[in-house]
């Protein structure tokens, strides 16, 4: 049987070249040959012993299997080809023509019904891949179809001279013979033909195990179905059970293939034992012996086939899950994503290989949350630890980005972690599922963009300070003047032989104080001129406003502008970079001053207010009495390169807005009701 599988399988292959005439011709020929040989084998069993005859009719199984793997449009060819084989076999034993045709018709119908049912109900191989399929197969091919066709098959006996009163017996025999064929020979044939690589296919030792299993089963069965003494001593039931452990073992280890193979082995051994020596089943008339044997084998093979199918199904499900897991892992790995799941009940952590690779964790070690967290960069450890553990503890969604140290040289990669809790039906969290993805390249791009923004912001700072240079020079000149004059006064007093030491002390005190003052100016300037990485520190906005005003003091004086400050109490600090924040203030002040260039001298006042906003954040307002924003274009002032100044670049406010945004704040501008405009800088409440 197995030898014709490749040819038929190729003919049935969807990609096989259509109209390959030779193959189409050859296949029915091979089938016909097999059909004939099957019939001969059955006859042979009948001739070898007078106690029994063949318990099932192999040609029906041959035809059924051939139909199953052939395109239904060519079934007629197979039927046509097997008719001569059938005729040849039956005529050889002298069967009359009518009897022969009835037999052929019933044989064909049982094969056709089985093939149709399997094709339509089981749809596709693996035929014994699930309990449902195996059950359907058994119900149809071992019960419905043979019992139906046996209604016709029983007439073969009657036509051969049997009595009509015996119709029921003939029916039962015909039924049992076909049912047994479907349960013993057909399953193993179908599995061998189905062309689906068994999930349990495996290395050499598996073949060895299979061979060993067959050998043991043969020996055990041969012993079990032995002779009369057992019948006499009443050990029959226990002996009959002997092969069962081996059969079950075969089913468990090899699934449907093992089950059906074991059933076939048991059947063959049973027939062989019964043919050659006295056995359990050759005590009555041949008909009774065979019928008993048939019933025994039907009863044995039905549950075994189902068991094999059940195991196959379980294995398949397992494999499917594993494959799915592998696919997900593969997809995750190729997209640079690492998956992890934390089980609350067991506190166990499962991670994909790619996840380990991302985090730089050794393969195959048992992990817990701490091992995972230990990979975080020392600078990020606290944040990640707190975020992850609190998300796990509170079963809330998590989203965080952090660095992982790679190698000893301080290299790191940026990972983004997202996690979601998984809840059971009652709403209690059972697990936390998350992904890690490598966001190093995005971070690098962001860092580059950030660097460029910083560059631009720095250039703008330098240019703003350039505009202020006159005033800034004055800020330095004042203390320098005081220092010089004090020193010169001291020199004169010294030359005069002045005796009061206290006067020199005062002079030195003043020199020191003024030097400190000059130093402070330079310090502020250096802060604004330098190009450091942005810091993250608590910045006192009131202090910053005062420092900025000190820097601009001379400019304000020169332009004849007064400043009116109104600071609230308990103003929280803003987290961020003092230089960047001061740049915003500087820009706002400069705008206010420029806006009042042509204002009447008595109106030149800048009103500054810093206070807590309603939401607990910080609000800074800088109002001027100048020209105000250009009407109808108030929104445009934040657009890059939009300017109302003669020599403006139009970048100041757009940069300030982005600086404010980076600190989580907003910068807005609005016209005052009376005159001028107000710049409003808001920051959210500080996060604790």
């Amino acid at each position, binding site marked *: 049987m197995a030898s014709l599988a490749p040819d038929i399988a190729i003919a049935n292959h969807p990609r096989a070249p259509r109209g390959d005439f030779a193959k189409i011709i050859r296949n029915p020929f091979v089938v016909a040959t097999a059909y004939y040989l099957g019939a001969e084998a059955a006859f042979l069993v009948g001739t070898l012993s007078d106690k029994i005859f063949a318990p099932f009719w192999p040609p029906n199984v041959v035809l059924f299997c051939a139909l199953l793997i052939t395109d239904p449009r060519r079934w007629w060819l197979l039927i046509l080809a097997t008719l001569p084989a059938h005729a040849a076999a039956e005529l050889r034993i002298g069967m009359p023509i009518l009897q022969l045709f009835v037999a052929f018709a019933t044989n064909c119908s049982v094969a056709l019904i089985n093939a149709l049912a399997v094709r339509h109900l089981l749809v596709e191989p693996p035929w014994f891949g699930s309990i449902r399929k195996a059950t359907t197969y058994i119900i149809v091919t071992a019960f419905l179809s043979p019992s139906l066709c046996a209604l016709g098959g029983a007439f073969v006996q009657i036509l051969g001279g049997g009595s009509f009163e015996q119709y029921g017996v003939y029916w039962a025999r015909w039924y049992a013979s076909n049912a047994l064929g479907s349960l013993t020979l057909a399953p193993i044939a179908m599995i061998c033909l189905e062309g689906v690589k068994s999930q349990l296919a495996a290395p050499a030792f598996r073949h060895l195990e299979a061979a060993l299993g067959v050998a043991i089963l043969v020996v055990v069965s041969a012993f079990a179905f032995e002779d009369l003494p057992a019948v006499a001593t009443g050990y029959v039931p226990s002996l009959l059970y002997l092969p069962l452990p081996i059969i079950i073992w075969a089913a468990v280890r090899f699934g449907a293939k093992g089950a059906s193979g074991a059933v076939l082995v048991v059947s063959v051994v049973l027939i062989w034992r019964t043919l050659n020596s006295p056995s359990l089943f050759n005590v009555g008339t041949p008909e009774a012996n065979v019928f008993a044997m048939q019933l025994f084998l039907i009863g044995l093979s039905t549950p075994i086939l189902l068991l094999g199918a059940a195991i196959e199904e379980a294995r398949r499900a397992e494999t499917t899950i594993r494959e799915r897991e592998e696919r997900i892992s593969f997809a995750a790995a190729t997209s640079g994503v690492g998956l992890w799941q934390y089980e609350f009940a067991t506190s166990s952590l499962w991670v994909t290989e790619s996840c380990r690779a991302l985090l730089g964790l050794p393969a195959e070690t048992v992990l817990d949350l701490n091992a995972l967290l230990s990979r975080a960069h020392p600078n990020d450890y606290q944040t990640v630890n707190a975020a992850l553990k609190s998300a796990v503890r509170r079963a809330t969604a998590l989203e965080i980005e952090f660095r992982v140290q790679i190698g000893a040289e301080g290299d790191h990669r940026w990972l983004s972690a997202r996690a979601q809790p998984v809840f059971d039906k009652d709403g209690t969290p059972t697990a936390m599922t998350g992904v890690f993805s490598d966001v190093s390249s995005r971070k690098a791009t962001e860092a580059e963009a950030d660097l460029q923004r910083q560059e631009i912001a720095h250039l703008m700072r330098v240019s703003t300070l350039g505009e202020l240079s006159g005033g800034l020079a004055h800020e330095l*000149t*004042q203390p320098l003047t*005081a220092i*010089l*004059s004090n020193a*010169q*006064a001291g020199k004169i007093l010294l030359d*005069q032989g002045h005796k009061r030491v206290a006067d020199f002390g005062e002079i030195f005190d003043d020199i020191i104080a003024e030097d400190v003052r000059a130093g402070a100016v330079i310090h502020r300037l250096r802060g604004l001129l330098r190009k450091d990485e942005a810091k993250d520190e608590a910045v006192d906005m009131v202090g910053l406003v005062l420092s900025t005003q000190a820097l601009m003091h001379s400019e304000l004086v020169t332009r004849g502008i007064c400043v009116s400050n109104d600071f609230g109490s308990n103003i929280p600090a803003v987290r961020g970079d003092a230089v960047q924040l001061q740049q915003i203030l500087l820009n706002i002040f400069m705008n206010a001053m420029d806006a009042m260039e042509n204002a009447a001298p008595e109106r030149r006042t800048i009103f500054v207010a810093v206070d807590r906003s309603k939401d607990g954040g910080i609000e800074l307002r800088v109002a001027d009495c100048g020209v105000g924003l250009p009407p109808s274009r108030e929104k445009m002032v934040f657009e890059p390169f939009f300017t109302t100044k003669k020599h403006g670049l139009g970048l100041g406010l757009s940069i300030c807005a982005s600086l404010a945004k980076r600190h989580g704040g907003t910068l807005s501008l609005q016209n005052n009701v009376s005159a001028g405009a107000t710049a409003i800088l808001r920051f959210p409440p500080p996060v604790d």
Partner: protein
Amino acid sequence: MADACFTTFLVDDDPAVLRSITRLLSAAGYKTKSFSSPQNFLVAHDPSVPGCAIIDLAMAELDGLGVQQELIKSGSNRPIIFLTGRGDVSSTVKAMKAGAVDFLTKPVEREALFSALERAAELDTLSRQKRRETASIAERLDTLTHRERQVLEHVISGRLNKQIAASLGTVEKTVKVHRGRMMAKLGVRSVADLVRLAEKAAIEPAQAPSA
């Protein structure tokens, strides 16, 4: 060094700078009065005290040029030295046009400051002398009668007594008496002295009647 009464008035709203320059000037022997507010300076200002003012150009309340304008308005011509943090051309021009002695850039060297102060002191002395002279002439002129004044105006226009008598509708003898009294009151001996005095007092000579 100027006379003992010579005072330098310092105006700068930066207390540290004010204190240091005051200290320097005091050490150098100047009598100084310092003001951190330009308004206070203007209110307290006494033009009769000899001296000069050193004023910072950039002040929040009222800038240096404003102080200069206020002083000029009040009729004082106190010499002013400006101090500035930046060499601003337009401010310098304005200040110098309005009669500033000097325009010094901070931080100021003492030599520059002292030499400016010397010049300021000279200027102050000169202007004070001039003022004093003008005042005494005016005082003497005030003692003249109407007729004597008329005679004065005719004398300095170089006319003879006879001609003056004719113009004033009197006799030559009377003119001679008036002339003698006028010369005595004014304390001049010659017509040449009289002409110089009249010039200082900006007295216009009388117009000769057209012949």
